[in-house]
């Protein structure tokens, strides 16, 4: 499913409008431990986290993640935003929790898989 569709359905707020949302999302990974995400997230995954500092972009670039969703209404540092734009990683915000965000996304992606 395209990131753009997911953004609309989950009412995510794109924080980096300069970065396009026309990319495919392969699934998602939830985690706040950066080494865990580095070890276990899959390519093209959407990363759901509450971390906001600049190193999340480096991790996303490494894993070729499709986007970072920052939960609980948290706001990333300005250097995180700058880095995200320069590295072409979309950052999306939500006031919802990681549980709600992942749950909804799981439903959406599952429904799509069933439709084939």
């Amino acid at each position, binding site marked *: 499913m395209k990131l753009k569709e997911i953004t609309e359905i989950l009412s995510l707020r794109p924080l980096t409008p300069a970065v396009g949302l026309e990319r495919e999302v392969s699934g998602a990974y939830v985690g*706040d*431990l*950066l*080494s*865990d995400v*580095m*070890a276990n997230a899959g390519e093209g995954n959407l990363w759901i*986290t509450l*971390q906001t*500092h*600049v*190193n*999340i972009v*480096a*991790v996303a*670039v*490494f894993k070729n993640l499709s986007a970072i969703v920052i939960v609980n209404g948290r706001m990333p540092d300005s*250097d995180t935003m700058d880095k995200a734009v320069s590295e072409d990683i979309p950052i999306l915000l939500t006031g919802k929790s990681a549980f709600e965000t992942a749950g909804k996304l799981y439903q959406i992606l599952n429904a799509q898989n069933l439709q084939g």
Partner: protein
Amino acid sequence: MKIDKTYEGSFHIVGGDFSHAGEASTELKTILLSAGVEDEFVRRVAIATFEAEMNIMIYATAGILRYTISPEEIRIIAEDMGPGIENIELAMQEGYSTAPDWVREMGWGAGMGLPNMKKNADTFRIDSVVGEGTKVEMIIRR
């Protein structure tokens, strides 16, 4: 660039300089990708290098990351001027960490760095002297 001979290089890493975290490994990843090596190999090298880079950044005053790329493998040596590791066996256990709270709040210091390096490397060797520093040597084969 095609890997038909041996390429060497190094990165200097400054302790505590988190704004530049991942830069050495990103650059190394770019070099490998442009050489046209397999994605899976690049992925393993990138993870192992990133973890080594972070350990220097978190614990040491400074360090150097050296790499040698040959057609068959990459050798990475991460050497730092840091506090050293008192109990290497303990440090190798997943979940064990001596990182300070502020580092943990960033999502680092989860005790996964050294295990992640070992997991991704074909050969992993660590030597440490308390009060002097730590040296990690990894070989990752294609």
